């Protein structure tokens, strides 16, 4: 079953208290940030801190690090310091070309070999934050087998687009649609941008409902309080869970019997139906609605 990435929570990489507690909020992924939330004068300290915290603290979720862009003076050093701690995932901001992904892929491969990690064990994702990047979205997600997700970074993107964020979100509609399409075409997950006004819960719920309908797998969050609301929106209904269980049972039964055609209540079950059912059960387990543990275990 696919790894769930409903809530990917940013944590400033220079804040020991937040880093220490990052694992308690049930985010599917924590993203330790050494990019925008860290001042240039603190980059080196944040890198060291993130390295040490990954090595020391046992997190109950996926651990990602958002590095500085590989073309800045900090990106390569970020990788050099952080990769030996073995994060699960590296998030590249402001991705614009497949080349960048390939460069990072190579650096990760070298680090994996040098540190004795299994090849391919460190995954990658990228965030689209410019119009140029959006035009290359599919190439970016297909540039490395390490790529597991494509995210939207709206703040920089809208500045590039020469517009601002609205309550209805129409300014992001095009980008979101393209990111979903590119991600799906490349077989990776699609992650929506952060919602920065943490006190406007109503607008957060509206936006999250919208992006879930569009097909996004999850959303970047900046405050733990957003996680519970987000999971509620991504939670399947009891009816959906029941159906999914029956679909999977019929599928298993057919597999056991080596039967080619699978049907449930007279309807044919094909691969997309099974995939959807697996996804529903994944969400249900992650929320404790069904036994079996989440796919993050």
């Amino acid at each position, binding site marked *: 079953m696919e790894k769930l990435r409903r809530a990917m929570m940013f944590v400033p990489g220079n804040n020991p*208290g937040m880093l*220490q*507690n990052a694992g*308690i909020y049930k985010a599917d992924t924590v993203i330790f940030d050494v990019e925008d939330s860290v001042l240039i004068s603190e980059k080196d300290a944040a890198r060291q801190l993130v390295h040490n915290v990954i090595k*020391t*603290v*046992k997190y109950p979720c996926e651990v990602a690090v958002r590095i500085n862009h590989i073309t800045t003076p900090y990106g390569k050093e970020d990788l050099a310091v952080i990769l030996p701690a073995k994060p699960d995932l590296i998030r590249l901001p402001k991705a614009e070309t497949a080349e960048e992904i390939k460069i990072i892929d190579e650096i990760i491969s070298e680090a994996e070999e040098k540190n004795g990690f299994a090849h391919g064990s460190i995954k990658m994702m990228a965030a689209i934050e410019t119009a140029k990047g959006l035009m290359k979205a599919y190439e970016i997600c297909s540039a490395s087998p390490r790529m597991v997700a494509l995210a939207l970074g709206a703040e920089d993107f809208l500045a590039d687009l020469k517009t601002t964020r609205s309550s209805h979100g129409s300014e992001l509609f095009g980008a979101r649609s393209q990111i979903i399409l590119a991600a799906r075409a490349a077989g990776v997950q699609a992650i929506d941008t952060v919602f920065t006004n943490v006190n406007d819960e109503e607008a957060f719920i509206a936006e999250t409902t919208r992006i879930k309908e569009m097909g996004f797998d999850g959303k970047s969050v900046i405050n*733990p*309080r957003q996680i519970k609301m987000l999971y509620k929106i991504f939670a399947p209904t009891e009816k959906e869970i029941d159906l999914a269980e029956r679909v999977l049972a019929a599928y298993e039964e057919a597999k056991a019997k080596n039967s080619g055609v699978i049907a449930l209540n007279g309807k044919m079950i094909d691969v997309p139906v099974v995939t959807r059912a697996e996804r529903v059960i994944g969400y249900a387990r992650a929320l*404790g609605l069904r036994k079996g543990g989440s796919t993050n275990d």
Partner: protein
Amino acid sequence: MINKAGRDIPLVIPGFKEVKLYNGAFGTVPTGRVVGPKITVNKPRSEKIVKSIDQAIEATGLKSGMTISFHHHFRNGDYVLNMVVEAIARKGIKDITLAASSLTSTHDAIIPFIEQGVITAIETSGGRGKLGELFTSGKYLKKPVLIRSHGGRARAIESGELAIDVAFIGAPACDTYGNINGIEGKSACGSMGYAMCDATYADQVVAITDHLVPHPLFPISIPQTNVDYIVEVDAIGDPKGIASGALRISRDPKELIIAEYAASVIEYSGYFKNDYSLQLGSGGASLAAAQFIKEKMIEQGIVGSFGVGGITAPFIDMLEQGLFKTLFDVQDFDIPSIDSLRNNPNHLEMSASYYANPHNRGPIVNKLDVVILSATEVDVDFNVNVITNSNGVIMGASGGHCDTAAGAGLSIVVAPLLRGRLPMVLDRVHTIVTPGETVDVIVTERGVAVNPNRKDVLENLKEANIPLMSIEELQHIAYNLTGKPEAIPVTDDIVGVVEYRDGTILDVIRKPV
């Protein structure tokens, strides 16, 4: 001698006639009789009103060596205690025992009078800030500060262990013959619960008010039959310090996680059903838990019988929505609670004895199903410390902690597992305020531990979607992140004595090195 909580208590403590060792939460059987105040007479048409606090002190005949008492309903806004102590000092009276139901940082103003020997002994619920530091220093006071719970103080007053010569009562509204309530006037504080015991048992009672009204005042919380003298002053307190606006639900994500787990513990504990009763602390996680509990009560159509406290706005909200039938109120923390006591007939004022005295015929805590309490630190034996900090300095108050833990069917202690770099689940708490045998569940942001003597609760909680673990596992998580803290080095000097609610000695506080 080692007491039943495993603490080494010296058999002789300076200033204490007798050292009775803690012998288990219900191990001590009381003997003797309830004491009473001196019999007195008030002739018809005599005048109770005196012109000043100084005159009232003279009228009571207060002398060096006596014991005076105060109540802490004005919290950080209290003017009364400081005014009276200052007046006593002016008169050259010394060697006074101060028995305040609690002390707050506003009472730092009496420090010079402790240094000058005006006050030489203190019996209270705790101490904060500079006063707490002074207690811990062991300087000036003739005997260790005696820490009592709210229920324990009521018991000590009724048994005569705490004999009050003069009680000074800050009266938000007082009539010309001494009837008092706390719900009227500019310094309204709500319930007068702690003062009720003082007024009933003190040899003499002085009401100090900034809202003197014609006789008779109604409703009456403390009756004219208990009051000897009345003084009118400009202000008895600062309303801003007495009560806050409606307390906001915490937005601290860590507190919210703890609150959610605590609410789940209640939901699955086996106690969550119609007519259950609940007490909430006033700490952030406890108040946040109220919000989650309220949602669960509405969802499941559960109506509780009564709430107890320390009353705060979230409780008022639940009372008004019909989620609880009644509130029993010993103290109010915010304006909505004071308004409710004034206006809602289902919101009942109670005395500290009715609340929590273990040696009467039944305090309300004995009927309590669930209580949520906070903690400074806990240990693997489930003991709780709320009084000394990580340097061994007094910085908190016992309050009703051990009373409600002992009385409630299910006592839940909420605390962060880590505060900064410090673990909060230790091998041994520095000071025991609530013995582990009365604590059922400890809830932290990283896990929930059930006292092994509550297998029933543990079994029920397996259904809840919460991270259940043993207290040792919880400690292991904390120590893995922080390392094992070293014990606080202390001297042999005893600066504080923690009395259990039944009058036995639960622990002593030794002066840190």
